[in-house]
């Protein structure tokens, strides 16, 4: 049975790998050059200069473990083609060797995702396990962001899933250790740190004074050890200030250039709307000199009417949003609910964070996939939110060559989800005794949800076809704004739904 299961997981992974290999010649974003530059920096320069180098504009802004990872990869890169790791000659290098090398490292690093899913689904029954595998390993968002746009999210999310799997098994120390490791790979994962902290404190360390204190010390020392391994060399060199400033570049604006579909989209639109109406009504409203995507220019605010938002404001808001979850975790720390809480934490971080990128939506959709098979409502919710987040990633791949690919990925994913969920929930229905209220246990999409999804199609038609046809290049921001706003509605709905689910 277990051998069968392993074979099937490997089968899913191999099928996904086939698709990923075929995506090698597709569009690459600047993130590709970013990672190549990091290969060069970590290979050609000593440790003390990693966070200081400015040969290229793509400076190192991830924590040290990721830098060590790039150093490890750069060893193989140099064997393949030394020009890849050359700091100066390798700038914007786009030969076949570097493309194949980097793409294949992403494919290999996805093995950690496979390991995470394997551990998480050990005790789940067959159909659910297959479905989780399909939702995670064949996630269209992962394919679009990691294997076309180019990033290493699969690798990092694998570690996160491993950590969650250990927490679910009740092995909190290892779970905490793995989370600390993930944090040292990419600090963006720190949004879930409050949840981990509260949960571990309550579940692991709250066991009587002596054991509790011993465990607290153990946990603390493990975390400190991990951080020491990561940041130690830099603290020793006295460079910790530089490292921190590189990791948290608050010089950037509230929104990324493409306006991730989060809460701030509404805030900005409200501000613009109010400014417009007030101007029409005769009030003197200054046009702000700063922009949302640019940095904080002195004291001026990019907002015309509403109060300015600073990084601190966003931090407080995220914390406030996570608080109900923290309270629940404190009152009753259940291992089975950890996945849900972590997904919720990342949703809040996505909605209220500073300079959030659309790609960050992967952080909550992958953990949500694990939770999606636990009940009918979860399945319905996941069906909606995964389509919305996948669609919100469309503007990332803006070239015509990838258009059929991204549309087909989304359609395929929706169809597979629908088939999988209907199989799961009608199967259970068939196995139970025939009770009353059959329609409740069947997987069906409600009218509002259907309407929203049809609206999604309309938004795509308008932004992709009608807008260029009628308006050409004018108001180029409008399609993006339309997509962001429409998706933000869906993601806000998801947040509220998750919050209610946690509270009840």
């Amino acid at each position, binding site marked *: 049975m277990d051998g*069968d299961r392993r074979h*099937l997981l490997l*089968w899913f992974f*191999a*099928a996904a*790998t*086939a*698709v990923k*290999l*075929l*995506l*090698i*010649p*597709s569009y690459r974003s600047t993130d590709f050059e970013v990672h190549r530059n990091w290969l060069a920096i970590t290979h050609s320069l000593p440790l003390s200069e990693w966070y200081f180098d400015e040969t290229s504009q793509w400076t190192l802004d991830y924590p040290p473990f990721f830098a060590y990872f790039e150093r490890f990869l750069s060893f193989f890169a140099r064997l393949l083609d030394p020009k890849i790791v050359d700091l100066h000659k390798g700038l914007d290098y786009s030969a076949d060797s570097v493309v194949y090398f980097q793409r294949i490292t992403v494919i290999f690093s996805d093995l950690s995702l496979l390991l995470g899913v394997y551990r998480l689904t050990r005790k789940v*029954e*067959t*159909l659910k396990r*297959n*479905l989780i595998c399909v939702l995670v390993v064949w996630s269209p968002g992962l394919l679009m962001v990691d294997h076309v746009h180019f990033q290493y999210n699969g690798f990092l999310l694998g570690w996160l899933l491993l950590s969650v799997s250990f927490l679910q098994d009740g092995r909190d120390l290892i779970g905490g250790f793995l989370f600390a490791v993930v944090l040292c790979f990419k600090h963006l994962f720190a949004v879930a740190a409050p949840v981990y902290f509260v949960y571990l404190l309550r579940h692991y360390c709250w066991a009587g004074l002596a054991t509790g204190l011993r465990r607290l010390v153990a946990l603390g020392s493990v975390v400190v050890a991990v951080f020491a391994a990561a940041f130690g060399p830099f603290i020793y060199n006295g460079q910790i200030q530089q490292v921190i400033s590189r990791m948290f570049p608050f010089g950037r604006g509230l929104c990324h250039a493409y306006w991730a579909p989060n809460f701030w989209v509404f805030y900005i639109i409200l501000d613009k709307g109010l400014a417009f109406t007030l101007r029409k009504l005769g009030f003197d409203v200054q046009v702000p000199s700063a922009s949302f995507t640019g940095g904080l220019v002195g004291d001026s605010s990019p907002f015309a009417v509403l109060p300015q938002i600073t990084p601190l404001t966003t931090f407080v808001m995220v914390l406030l949003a996570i608080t109900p979850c923290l309270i629940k975790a404190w009152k009753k720390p259940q291992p089975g609910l950890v996945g849900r809480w972590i997904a919720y934490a990342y949703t809040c971080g996505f909605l209220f964070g500073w300079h959030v990128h659309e790609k960050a939506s992967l952080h909550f959709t992958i953990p949500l996939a694990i939770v999606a098979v636990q009940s009918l409502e979860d399945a319905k919710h996941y069906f909606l939110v995964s389509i919305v987040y996948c669609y919100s990633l469309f503007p990332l791949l803006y070239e*015509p*060559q990838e258009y*059929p*690919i991204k549309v*087909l*990925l989304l*359609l*395929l994913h929706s*169809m*597979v989800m629908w*088939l*999988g969920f*209907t*199989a*799961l929930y*009608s*199967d259970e229905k*068939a*196995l139970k005794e025939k009770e009353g209220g059959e329609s409740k246990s069947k997987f069906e999409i409600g009218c509002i949800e259907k309407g929203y999804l049809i609206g999604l199609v309309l938004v795509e038609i308008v932004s992709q076809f009608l807008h260029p046809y009628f308006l050409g290049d004018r108001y180029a921001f409008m399609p993006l704004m339309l997509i962001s706003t429409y998706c933000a509605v869906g993601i806000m709905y998801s947040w509220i739904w998750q919050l209610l689910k946690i509270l009840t």
Partner: protein
Amino acid sequence: MPKKNHSGDGTAAPLPVPPIDTWWWLSHKGTTTSFLCISLFALLIRSAVSMFPYSGAGTPPKFGDFEAQRHWMEITTNLPAIDWYRNGTNNDLTYWGLDYPPLTAYQSYIHGLLLRFFNPDSVSLFSSRGHESYIGKLLMRWTVLSSDALIFFPAALFFVLVYHRNRAKSQVAWHIAIILLNPCLILIDHGHFQYNCISLGLTVGAIAAVLCGSEVLTCVFFTLALSHKQMSAYFAPAFFSHLLGKCLRRKNPILSLLKLGIAVIVTFVIVWWPYLHSVDDFLMVLSRLAPFERGIYEDYVANFWCTTSILIKWKKLFTTPSLKFMSLAATVLASLPSMVHQIFSPSNEGFLYGLLNSSMAFYLFSFQVHEKSILMPFLAATLLALKIPDHFNHLTYYALFSMFPLLCRDNLLLPYLTLHLLFTLIYHSQLPKTKASSFSFTNFPGYVFLLRTHFVISLVLHVVYLTIQPPQKYPFLFDALIMILCFSYFVMFAIYTNYTQWNFSSHFRSADKEKKQI
């Protein structure tokens, strides 16, 4: 993997969930829904392969098949129909002149209009020769994708629905995946660049119509397929013999034959109308379709003439007319057993084998066969995959291998390897259960050993071809070795399928004593 009987009988002991067939969730909503799901995946794979280079990319002055198709769009959108096949100042037939029947020309015309609307530079007369651009490539690729989706996929659905009408539904999804994720078709149509999906789709439609019993539709579809690519004639003996066999069993054979004949003629006249006004025009088109002056074989294709030419120099020993006659005779002889079988005992199953046998016979013995022509027997094999799974597995491997040099020249090595991987994954996802046939090569001593040695040699050849330079004296040494290996497998395969088809009559007609020819 244990199969599940979905209708629980309720008398069993109270157990939790019974084992479920792994792919049940894909096919539980019916054949059409699973077809839709798999076709989305198939379209995704096609779109991804489209990103790779096409034939003749960046190689002036002649380029390759991509440039040929683009040139045909240029010719058909700028000149009147009668001039398409005629040599003239505006249409230089030595630069990729049209050499497929009129339906290809009409299809080029429609696609040419599309290209002209979005990117006029790519099809303007003369100045667009050798035109290569991002948007031009994209539009051309999308024409193939749309033809595939509009013609091949519906035909495949038609076939699957008809074929699986009376069978267990557990293997439908597997069969659909095998048909739609045909690696040879994807690599040639969406990689190298051709429009085989249209003629193959029409052929599949004709085959499905035969299984359905609507013979007039068969004739219409097959005539359309023939009018798109003359290579569809590879299947003609099978269609002819099966329909003849069926008609002879009717009450009024002459009337049935007449009906079918009229269907063929009417379709033919409608498609070829611009070229039927004078005998000269008609012959002009025909002469373009059969370029005998190019010789009995070109390059290194794994068929009889090319492989034996290593020992017997056919081109030097015989003139072209006598070679024409010899290849015709050999082809007819090779397809005779299967034709005779179908005329005397037509059956749907036998018909499918007949398709495989006649197309294989044509591939092995016909005049001017290209490597890409393996698509024809391979298509027939995908339709029969449930019946001959082991042999189908090997055929796929060797069919792809026979195209390996061609694909390497097109820089399609990665899609080649990936589609091989994908095919293996799909093939092993759910191995179909077949009853052991009475004749199996495994009974022959040394067959398994032979097959294994073949496989090892082919692996070695893969690596050698990619890494080592051939000696100066024999620059095509490795191509020739690949060709010999593939040819020997195809011959073994053809013997097996012919024997199997021939044995059908013994299953069906054990009471009748029919004289058999050996």
